[in-house]
């Protein structure tokens, strides 16, 4: 790792800054890979929602920011469309995770047997009694 950094720093300034962008992109895809492991391994849809929304959003943010830095350093191109893509993903990923979890609960998908508490059950029953 130290040899890699020494190799990075000994290159000229342009190539080393592009290398920073490439390492950001690699970090982002590693986060995506970890979220895919979470998608495979976790027991039910509510716990899988953590892996599907949080870590994959972080991964795609790292990747898009790495691409943004690459175009900024390589050919001095300030890509407002990439920034808009970052903003849009950051805005919509939590909303879609929330909506999927809400639809799953309302269409009565079972929680896994290792879950310990379900606060929404009592609240929903109270709401139905009131209505």
């Amino acid at each position: 790792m130290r040899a890699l950094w020494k190799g990075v720093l000994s290159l000229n300034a342009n190539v080393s800054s592009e290398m920073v962008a490439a390492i950001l992109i690699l970090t982002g895809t590693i986060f995506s890979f970890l979220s895919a492991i979470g998608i495979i391994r976790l027991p039910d849809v509510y716990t899988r929602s953590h892996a599907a929304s949080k870590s994959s959003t972080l991964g795609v943010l790292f990747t898009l920011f790495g691409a943004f830095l690459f175009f900024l350093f390589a050919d001095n191109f300030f890509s407002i469309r990439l920034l808009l893509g970052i903003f849009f993903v950051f805005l919509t990923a939590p909303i879609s995770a929330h909506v999927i979890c809400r639809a799953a609960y309302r269409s009565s998908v079972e929680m896994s047997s290792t879950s310990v508490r379900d606060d929404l059950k009592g609240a929903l029953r109270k709401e139905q009694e009131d209505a």
Partner: protein
Amino acid sequence: MIEIILMLSLGFLALSMMATIFRLVIGPTTPDRVQALDLLGINLISAVAIFSVLLNTHAFMEVILLIGILSFIGTIAFARFMERGVVIERKRLK
């Protein structure tokens, strides 16, 4: 060196998309499958970004925005369909 790193990250991304497609196929309920589709769209966004860095072109930026918007709208429509049975609700006054 940069191309090697980008190829490596494309490999990681392909592995994670394969895992997501596995969940899309085996997912026991409908929300699992919709969640996997959403994650597939997000992974596709980063794949397009890596490809545009690899080919050194600016042509794919609109594709990133389009995939993001279409995946979001598809997720919302699927969730609406799972919750209420219809995508577009009509409220009539009686």
